[in-house]
């Protein structure tokens, strides 16, 4: 028992260390969003001016809007298409599967500039004007590979026989899919969606060359700054706060629901 507790203590300690490492620069950015000066290395005094600047800057607010809009659409579409494709490919002949996965890796492997110029050339030769739609298409294109790469290993762990048994027992392919396969790969789909969302959220180069006139996202704003504007620190802090609130809510709702149920039990 004591040994078990010790190992739990060690593993929790390790996870906390990893989290500290991952959150260190985030805390740094949050801290400097309250800096009075423009520096990102020297704190000269507390001020909220960068928050005020951010809310007064329409271009910046539009950036948030476009970033979230594109990320949400690209994540939903790429998760659905990617998952379906992964299931299909897992049942393909090895040669077809290998070839498809190799091509699937291209957007992950290519430097962003190559993917970006390639997509731009595609839109030019198809005589498609760059717009919000081309931006979203581009994001879906580089997000799907991440979903497939995440879902595929889980599919490989699945026991083929289970799905086949379901089919033998008279389940339709649809039932086999939704009742047998999907529940088992569900965590992988979720992880894939999270990674896709992050990729879309943080992309600069591909967005730059596929977005229509007047459409900027947060990354485009940050990269194009001729001089550092600390309002982007304020913007990042805002994102952290909003996401944290959502996380807390998502975690609290089941708790509250449980408590209510428990109370109901007692009354009854």
């Amino acid at each position, binding site marked *: 028992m004591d040994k078990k507790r010790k190992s739990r203590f060690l593993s929790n300690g390790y996870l906390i260390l990893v989290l500290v490492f991952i959150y260190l620069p985030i805390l740094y950015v949050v801290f400097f969003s309250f800096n009075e*000066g*423009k*520096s*990102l*290395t*020297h704190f000269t005094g507390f001020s909220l001016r960068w928050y005020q600047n951010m809310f*007064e*800057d*329409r*271009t910046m607010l539009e950036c948030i809007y476009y970033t979230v809009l594109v990320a949400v659409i690209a994540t939903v579409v790429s998760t659905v298409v990617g998952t379906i494709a992964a299931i299909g490919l897992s049942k393909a002949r090895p040669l077809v599967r290998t070839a498809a996965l190799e091509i699937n890796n291209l957007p992950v492997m290519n430097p962003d500039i190559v993917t970006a*110029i390639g997509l*731009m050339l595609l*839109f*030019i030769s198809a005589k498609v*004007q*760059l717009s919000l739609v081309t931006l979203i298409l581009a994001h879906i294109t580089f997000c799907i590979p991440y979903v497939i790469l995440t879902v595929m290993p889980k599919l490989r762990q699945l026991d083929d026989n289970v799905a086949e048994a379901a089919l033998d027992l008279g389940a339709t392919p649809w039932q086999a899919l939704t009742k047998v396969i999907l529940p088992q790969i569900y965590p992988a789909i979720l992880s894939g969606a999270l990674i896709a969302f992050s990729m879309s959220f943080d992309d600069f180069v591909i967005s*730059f*060359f596929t977005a*229509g*006139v*007047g*459409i*900027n996202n947060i990354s*485009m*704003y940050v*990269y*194009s*700054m*001729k*001089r*550092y*504007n600390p309002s982007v620190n304020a913007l990042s802090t805002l994102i952290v706060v909003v996401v944290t609130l959502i996380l807390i809510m998502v975690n609290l709702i089941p708790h509250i629901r449980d408590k209510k149920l428990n109370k109901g039990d007692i009354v009854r």
Partner: protein
Amino acid sequence: MKKVLTAVLVICLIAMGAAGLAEKKDPVAEYGSDVLNVYNWGEYIDKQVITNFEKEYGVRVNYSLFSSNEEMYTKLLSGASYDVLVPSDYMIERLIREDKLQPLDKDVVTNLDVLTAGVQNMGYDPDNTYSAPYLWQTVGIVYDTTKIDPEAMEEQGFSAFLNPEYKGHVYMYDSERDGFMIALKALGYSANTTDEDELNAAFDWLREMDKAVSPSYVTDEVIDAMANGEKWMALVYSGDAAYILSENEDMGYCTPKEGTNIAVDAMVIPANASNPKLANVFINYILEYDNSLMISEEVGYASTNDQVLNDLSAEGGTYEGNAAYLPRAGYELDEYYNDIPESLRSLYSSMWIKVKLHE
């Protein structure tokens, strides 16, 4: 009596309404569209100017951002239609040569007479047929006056980058064009040379520079770093130097005696603009005293409006006593960049990479 009063009131109201209508022109009827697409460098304007323009003309400005001329040029290849671009001199030369711009409407852009002498008669567009200068700057050296004596700095000019006493205390701007410019200038050549022997000599100069002072190759992070006095000297644009000097009073600015690059960013209208009429109005608006003042004050780059330039650098101006704000004008050895011939661009790139890799 009452009737007369009522009648007068009604007439007055109608008259006022009509006057109001007449004053508030319908932008769609006037320009064909109430949207203006502007494509400019990031953090290169006072946003209030845009807001004011929108209010005054009842239009909406769609503002897009880029971080280099080449990036912007590549984006234009997609056929995207912007109304106003703000590229630099050599890029304008290229856009004119490739027929990608349309002439300004001089009946609308009437403020060109405010231009300061330093940005008049530019080689790429001598009579401002296509372009109206927006902001301008020189390339120079910001240095810590507590570490390097100002006289010694002026005496050395660009050859300070070969001085081993400064080893480890130098920032070099990571731009192949500017890197080659200082080498060519230090050697007494033109920054626009296409002579391969001269370029090779500049290449050797840069390699010697890399050995002598072991610089850190940086881009925009140099601004924050020099404002905090992290190193002794750095190659910077005068507009950024003006900011550094206003943040840190130990810093000085030197426009090297060998001559340097003068760069002008100017407003142009692409040939495929969808709202050229409003674009001309916008360009004229930006040239106005108040607006040019706000922009130059905010970003620290020199105004192209002569009076703004004088007022900001004169007594009581925001940049009074700031050695970097006012660019050196009329110095014989200073040059604008020409567009590098296509055949030389890759050579520039590969040589610059070799310099940075200490080869």
